[in-house]
């Protein structure tokens, strides 16, 4: 039995490129990776939004209305439903004048128990140090 920890670090804003959504869909794929592994082996995914990437976490995104696309917000909520650890950099939120009331925090409508954690960058650094591999999007 072994565990490989992957850290997905999102540093680009949403919708300008495909990167943030691909980060989330790849992280969510950690829930179905077992088909490629031996019994008991797992891959975990932690997600961190930093820099301009924190803009992905704004709530009430209108992607369906404007683009007929699933929103990045809905992918964050799906990540919470799947109990993925989602961190958002507090300093970068401050830089944009955003507070916790502006961003996705939880997803009760999805049935998720997990909540997004707004943390200092130092805590995101700690998370990254704990990973086996980092993927920057």
């Amino acid at each position, binding site marked *: 039995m072994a565990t*490989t920890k*992957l850290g997905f670090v999102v540093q680009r804003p949403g919708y300008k490129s495909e990167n943030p959504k*691909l980060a989330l869909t790849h992280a969510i794929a950690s829930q179905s*990776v077992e088909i490629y592994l031996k019994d008991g082996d797992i891959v975990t995914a932690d997600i961190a939004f930093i820099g301009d990437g924190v803009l992905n976490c704004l709530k009430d995104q209108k992607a369906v209305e404007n683009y007929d696309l699933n929103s990045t917000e809905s992918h964050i909520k799906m990540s919470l439903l799947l109990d993925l650890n989602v961190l958002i950099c507090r300093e970068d939120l401050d830089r944009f004048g955003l507070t916790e009331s502006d961003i996705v925090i939880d997803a009760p409508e999805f049935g998720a128990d997990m909540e997004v954690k707004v943390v200092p960058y130092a805590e995101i650094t700690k998370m990254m140090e704990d990973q086996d591999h980092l993927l920057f999007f």
Partner: protein
Amino acid sequence: MGKLTIGCFASLVGSTNLDFAVKLSAAAMEKGHKVDLWVSGNGTMISIKDQRAFKDYSSLEKPLKELMAKGLNVTACEACAESRGYHADHTLEGVKRFSMDWYLGSAFDADRLLHIGGE
């Protein structure tokens, strides 16, 4: 010898990131390492066969075929490819198509993971 997993999300035409990924794969294999190359997003463009080679655009079909013959494992994100109209019947022989969990499965036992994001 080790295992290197490379994920490349950048387009074949419009950047030289895939060129770099293929050259790095060749260098690693030359040293005896096993290499998995995952392409996702615009990177799936590399999986299409019969692309015409111009000197002004990257063209990797020939080196990719040579490396796959030597054991390079290339897999394209099926959803990313299909969304771009890159269908299975037009996929370069030897390139596999799976869902995103394949990349994470490859990362599981990789000694090093090099992730090259998209544009």
